């Protein structure tokens, strides 16, 4: 007996399974739909996660991955730092610019409007570091160091309904608005929300607080590759200039990396959810196939009598399950991508196709098909011909 040439060809098996599914009608569609829903969930959720990660990355990249933030903590013996601010102009050739930040909450008054706002004292270098621009008026310059001038953040200007030339009362002093800043958005890296507050020259901070403290230094590196080295140099320099102060430099890249891994975790969590949906779809396929095996018991017996080996019977049913799963995978992938696109569109994000989402979705749907199709197929193959042929 030659075993090699026995059994129908692959294309014949396929055609037969497709024809069988065709006669199963609505039940086959329900099985396919279960897998499609699962696969769509996997693909959609992976893509939503991917788009979300991209979105947050874009958000952060807009804030500059060249940005450095040094936080300073002084013990009580160190003299007030604004009296003798650290020299920041020549800290490192890797830095384009660096600016100190001293902050204090102040009651700001203009006519009848009064708001508690955060006032930040800094040097003109801050405009370079944070890429500030004046929507109205002008920015602070070196010559304004001892003037009672201020810049308003975009939102603060709206709140106070102030314009250039207005005199604002900060505590006991009057400051003149010389410019209103363009909005820069919220940057979680910065210790200060520029849009919501106001900027004055560093020296002027002494009018608002008896011992103003420089609590941070922000700096801009030449490029993102040298950020880490620049951070070390900045930290070293500040420690030298300010003995007794605790210096810690944060690189946004660290934060970005943290965000990315968090986004990945989120993605996988969502994919796990999709996998559960897929599992449910697989159970649906198994149900359809088990029903089919029971209903076609007699047919199995006839095929066996005519020469179908157990393996031929197993293929017959396994292929049906796999075809159902493949159909579900194709349909589910399309629906999944569409759903993710819709979600991104509704959230106002850029849609980005996760290149892994479709292969992952399709392969897992096929594996589900094989896994849940195998059991009914083997049950059919294990039937004894006499038992299968017996009339009920």
């Amino acid at each position, binding site marked *: 007996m030659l075993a090699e040439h026995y059994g129908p060809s692959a294309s*014949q098996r396929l055609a037969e399974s497709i024809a069988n599914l065709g006669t199963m009608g609505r039940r086959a569609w329900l099985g396919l739909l279960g897998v499609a829903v699962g696969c769509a969930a996997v693909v959609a959720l992976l893509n939503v996660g991917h788009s979300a990660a991209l979105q947050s990355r874009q958000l952060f990249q807009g804030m500059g991955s060249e940005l450095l933030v040094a936080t300073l903590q002084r013990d009580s013996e160190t003299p007030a730092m604004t009296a003798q601010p650290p020299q920041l102009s020549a800290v490192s050739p890797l830095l384009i610019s660096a600016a100190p930040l001293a902050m204090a909450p102040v009651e700001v008054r203009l006519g009848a409007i009064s708001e508690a706002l955060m006032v930040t004292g800094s040097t003109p270098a801050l405009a370079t570091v944070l890429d500030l621009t004046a929507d109205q008026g002008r920015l602070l310059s070196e010559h304004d160091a001892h003037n009672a001038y201020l810049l308003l953040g975009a939102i603060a200007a709206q709140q106070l309904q102030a314009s250039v030339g207005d005199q604002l009362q900060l505590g006991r002093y009057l400051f003149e608005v010389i410019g209103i800043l363009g909005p820069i958005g919220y940057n979680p890296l910065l210790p200060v929300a520029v849009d919501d507050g106001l900027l004055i020259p560093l020296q002027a901070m002494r009018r608002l607080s008896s011992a103003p403290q420089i609590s941070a230094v922000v700096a801009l590196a030449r490029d993102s590759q040298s950020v880490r080295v620049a951070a070390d140099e900045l930290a070293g320099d500040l420690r030298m200039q300010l003995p007794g102060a605790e210096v810690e430099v944060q690189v946004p890249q660290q934060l970005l990396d943290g965000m990315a891994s968090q986004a990945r975790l989120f993605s996988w969590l969502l994919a796990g959810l999709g996998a559960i949906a897929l599992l449910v779809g697989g159970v649906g396929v198994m149900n359809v196939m088990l029903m089919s095996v029971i209903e076609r018991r007699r047919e199995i*017996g*006839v095929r066996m009598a*005519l*020469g179908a*080996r*157990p393996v031929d019977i197993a293929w017959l049913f396994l292929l049906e399950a796999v075809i159902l799963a493949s159909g579900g995978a194709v349909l589910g992938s399309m629906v999944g991508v569409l759903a993710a696109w819709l979600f991104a569109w509704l959230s106002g994000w850029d849609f980005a196709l996760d290149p892994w989402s479709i292969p992952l979705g399709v392969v897992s749907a096929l594996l589900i098909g094989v896994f849940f199709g195998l059991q009914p197929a083997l049950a059919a193959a294990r039937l004894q011909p*006499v038992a299968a042929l017996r009339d009920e």
Partner: protein
Amino acid sequence: MSAAISLEHVHRSLGGEVILGDVSLSIAHGQSCAIVGPSGSGKSTLLNLIGLLDEPCHGRVLIGGENMTGASGAQRAMMRNRSIGFVFQSFHLLPRLTVLDNVALPLFYRGMPVPRARCAARRQLQLVGLGARMSHRPAELSGGQRQRVAIARALVGEPQLLLADEPTGNLDGEAAADVLELLKALNRERGVTLLLVTHDPAMASHMQRCLNVRAGQVGDAR
């Protein structure tokens, strides 16, 4: 020359009840043989053992001299496909396939390319007088026509052995006579060994030999 079929001390019990106990028999090539006996005596059981659809509890079944004891499911399937044709009382055609594909099915399992298998099936259907019904579904045929399709299917693989379990049980007089004539002609002209289970003594009398199954034993009735 070895016998077409030999059973050596075959024993089969079902559900704790002995159906066949220590049956030995041998059927020569080309012989036509009726199997008779009361209902429930084990005629179908005997035929299923010979047709390799069932396995004995003890004893050996040899088909064309080949010992099938302990053969795997796949080996038995291949032996059935090559050497044995079945005709059942309730036809057992696959309702979803056309008449032509029903007949070609054993050749598909043999691994024959579809066009060749269909060609052979067409020839076989013409031989049983159904050349005009090939693209019908079985449900569109009469009982007698269906049984002739089943006979064409049993013959398409050119087996040496034809096993028929009450092939006329569901047919009226005329159709039954047709089917019997066809089977006899096949036995006569092609030299196929024919085993026929029947309740009808007249039908049994058309066979060269008659086996009687009774109380777990099988013996020649004449």
